[in-house]
């Protein structure tokens, strides 16, 4: 179905090829998962399949990409629209019309499909993806998960034989992500579609994969193969695989169901041990309160974003804020930095109302790394960014650079922030925020687009911050991150707090937010592989 023959690609000025001599053949009805670090060339590989690389990105492509017998050499993307459907990373940016139904019909209109057939296909797609109640809604009014499903539907109506998705679940809460992946699995099984999907969170997508394609980056050869076999030696692996390796399970389970079937002996061995994580006890002795909200409510017009929230944020604590898309997490973080005045109630950050604080004073009390960390960065080089940050906050020159060195050593000083990897960019934004040493540090969705090594680094940094007495708040969908680092967890639903307590209790009691290890080892509340490893080493074989 898809053939890549000796494909090499490099962007205009770049010396290093993004892809080099790629040979790949994907047959019909396969679900392939593409894994790799940010900037490794995953997106380039995906876009090469429908010809957006090089038609839209520029650069030099050698070799040949053939999809359903058509070479992208002679067929620009628009000529492949009936064969390949591509769903980009940000579905909202790909919408061409304004109403769900029109968006679904758009590709078919371009292909010149009979009006009667169009009606039928739109109805089928609405049903297939569960969108029928949204048909007349404005696209801007949809939630992230709904937008993602509309974006998939919009390419499906053209009945392509290949579906290419670039990180379809990265912006979604766990439930919405499951929904999208389930829809994909159904398309493969029911319609025999060939699906190529790039994904950072392996734990979500691995059970569905027929084949795994690892893109190592810097033009190194791809590794392609059966997910089970590749996972045995892969340096990056989801918790389920790491647990399998630790327990010596054979064959390696990839889904929670398979793992639970062979986990009974392990569960027995662990039954007598109380799971703990180093430093976890400290969280139960909260230090001084850094910030608090009192009966805080925020509305946008008629919409109630958050409602009557009483919370305290303490020193030496990592707090995870969870909840589905649009449940009010970002609004709450915005309140803590005083982006807009509350509708009712008060916010108190170290004795001040953040709304009235001058920006310069504010950043000494509270720092927020927004979802798109790049928004915080404007300078032309990393070095300039650090020195302007020192200047803005009135710090000793070199403070930010030193902070950056602590967060992530070896970020190239001369590089433009846009050219950094996702992990490096996050580190730089975090350094800028941390340099004035605010007692309250907020991170909005910090693991979006992060690969496993960068995530490990982030977990270490967050742990250090807690030990140094900061109060850290994470708004996140990433349950594995919560499992590894959070002391306390809060679940928001429709703007209200529905759960607040020690992270271990909160996430283990919820099927949606439970990490993989907890699902496998339930009813015992184990959260991470590291805990299990520690326990097993303590007990001995």
């Amino acid at each position, binding site marked *: 179905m898809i053939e890549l023959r000796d494909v090499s690609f490099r962007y205009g000025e770049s010396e290093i090829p993004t892809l080099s001599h790629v040979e790949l053949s994907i047959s019909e009805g396969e679900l392939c998962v593409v894994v790799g670090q940010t900037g490794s060339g995953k997106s380039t590989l995906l876009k090469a399949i429908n010809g957006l690389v090089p038609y*839209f990105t520029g650069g030099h492509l050698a070799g040949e990409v053939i999809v359903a017998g058509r070479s992208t050499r002679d067929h620009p*993307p*628009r*000529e492949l*629209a009936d064969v390949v459907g591509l769903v980009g990373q940000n579905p909202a*940016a790909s919408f*061409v019309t304004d109403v769900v139904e*029109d968006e679904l019909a*758009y590709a078919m*209109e*371009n*292909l*010149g499909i009979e*009006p009667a057939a*169009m*009606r039928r296909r*739109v109805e089928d797609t609405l049903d297939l993806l569960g969108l029928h*109640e949204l048909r*007349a*809604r*404005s696209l*801007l*009014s949809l*939630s992230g998960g*709904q937008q993602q499903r509309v974006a998939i539907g919009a390419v499906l109506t*053209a009945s392509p034989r290949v579906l290419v998705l670039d990180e379809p679940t990265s912006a979604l809460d766990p*439930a919405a992500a*499951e929904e999208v992946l*389930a829809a994909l699995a159904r398309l493969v099984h029911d319609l025999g579609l060939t699906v190529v999907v790039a994904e950072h969170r392996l734990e979500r997508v691995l059970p569905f994969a027929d084949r795994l394609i690892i893109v190592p980056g810097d033009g190194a050869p791809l590794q392609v193969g059966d997910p089970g076999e590749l996972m045995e030696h892969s340096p990056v692996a989801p918790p389920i695989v790491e647990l399998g390796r630790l327990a010596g399970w054979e064959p390696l389970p990839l*889904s*929670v*169901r398979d793992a*639970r079937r062979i986990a009974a002996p392990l569960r027995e061995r662990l039954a007598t041990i109380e799971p703990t994580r180093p430093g976890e006890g400290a969280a139960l002795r909260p230090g001084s309160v850094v910030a608090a909200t009192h009966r805080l409510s925020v509305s*946008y*017009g008629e*919409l109630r974003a958050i409602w009557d929230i009483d919370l305290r944020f303490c020193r030496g604590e990592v707090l995870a804020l969870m909840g589905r898309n649009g449940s009010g997490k970002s609004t709450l973080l915005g309140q803590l*930095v005083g*982006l807009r005045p509350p509708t009712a109630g008060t916010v108190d950050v170290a004795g001040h109302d953040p709304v009235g604080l001058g*920006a310069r004073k504010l*950043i000494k009390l509270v*720092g927020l790394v*927004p979802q798109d960390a790049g*928004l*915080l960065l*404007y300078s032309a080089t990393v070095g300039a960014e650090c020195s302007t*940050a020192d200047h*803005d*906050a009135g710090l000793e020159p070199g403070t930010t650079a030193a902070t950056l060195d602590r967060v992530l050593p070896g970020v190239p000083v001369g590089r433009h922030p846009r050219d950094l990897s996702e992990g490096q960019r996050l580190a730089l934004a975090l350094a*800028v*925020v941390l340099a*004035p040493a605010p007692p309250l540090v907020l991170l909005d969705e910090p693991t979006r687009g992060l690969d496993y090594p960068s995530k490990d680094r982030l977990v270490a940094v967050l742990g250090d911050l807690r030990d140094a007495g900061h109060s850290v708040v994470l708004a996140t969908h990433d349950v594995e991150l919560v499992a590894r680092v959070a002391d306390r967890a809060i679940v928001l*639903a429709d703007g209200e707090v*529905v759960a607040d307590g020690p992270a271990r209790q909160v996430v*283990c009691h*919820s*099927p*949606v937010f439970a990490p993989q290890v*907890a*699902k496998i080892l*339930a009813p015992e509340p184990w959260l991470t592989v590291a805990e299990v490893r520690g326990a097993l080493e303590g007990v001995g074989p």
Partner: protein
Amino acid sequence: MSRHRGTGPSQRSLHPLAWWIWAAGMAVTAIKTTNPLLLAMIAAVVIFVVAARRTAAPWSRSLTFFLRLGLIVIAIRIVVEIVFNQRLPGHVLFVLPHLTLPHWAAGVYIGGPVALEAILEAFLDGLRLAVILVCFGAANSLASPYRLLRCLPAVLYEAGVAVTVALAFAPEIVITIASVREARRLRGRATRGLAGLRGMAIPVLEGALDRSLQLASSMDSRGYGRRDGTNRSTRRRATSATVIGLLAVVVGVYGVLAVGSLFGLGLPILAAGIALCALGLSVGGKRTTRTRYRPDPWRWPEWVVAASGLCALAGLAAAEALGSTSVQFSFYPLAVPGLPVLACVGILVALVPAIAAPAPPATVGPKALGEPATLEPSAVAKAVTFGAAGSRPTVVEGGR
């Protein structure tokens, strides 16, 4: 195949072209008069119709934006008139201290005596422009610009990409400005004033341009602008005929509107332009492969709406032809303007769409921008109670 999207059968979206013809009729009427009473009437009629027939969609709020813009235009026009004084004769209201400019700037005056007539002229000029803006805003509010784009003939496809990107640009820039402003606050920098503006321009433009490129690539990968059966040279000839025709139409319209320009050739140029357009469109559209999903029908309400807009223009033209002097405002001598009856009747006819146009479907837009999903009751129950109704069996097994 009508576009029933509302709850009742009488609710549907009017064909966007009908609204645009109606609004254009009103705008041209505004151009042709300087009578403040007529101008105010046009604005009132337009605003009334918009209030009666707009949808709840986000773009429906563009009228407010254009109203504000209109007020700004009037203010700027008056200030410019006062500062760059034309020294018109008439009733002097007050005298500003004036600058003596060097001889090479002869004819340009700054300051000096300000006459009532000059201010009135500036005000009416600004008002006329403001009313035109309101008409444009009304068309935007009543018919989604995206839906109008769907009516674009196949020949003008290349222009379609540009227009879609441009349409997406303005709302995107508003969103980007908000996020960049927030980010600047988080960095401890000025968010207002000149310093704030300077630091924001680059990130905002960068963000909006990025998004435009993404949109263009998305359109392309979904088959926009696919080659049809016609051969290249035919297509090129059709496109150039249409483009030249459109240019001729623009020049012709100018000639018709600005009386005395183009040596009276306005009408013939306009006619030639329309003929060229028709030729290009018919040749280019013949073998297009594009189809239309649930096309908006053109029925009697569309005829009524379009005709009522043209009625206003016709009424004004008739009044002028019959020698009514009150269509234009009289500065010398300064007089309270009268009300030409025919023109008034014409403009009032343009109110008809408020009743004749079908009510827009109620469900198209969100109640508020940025409103999160209306969740199915089951989904709410799932999240609130943490019930074990996960979407995969494994989840159920893992839960307790």
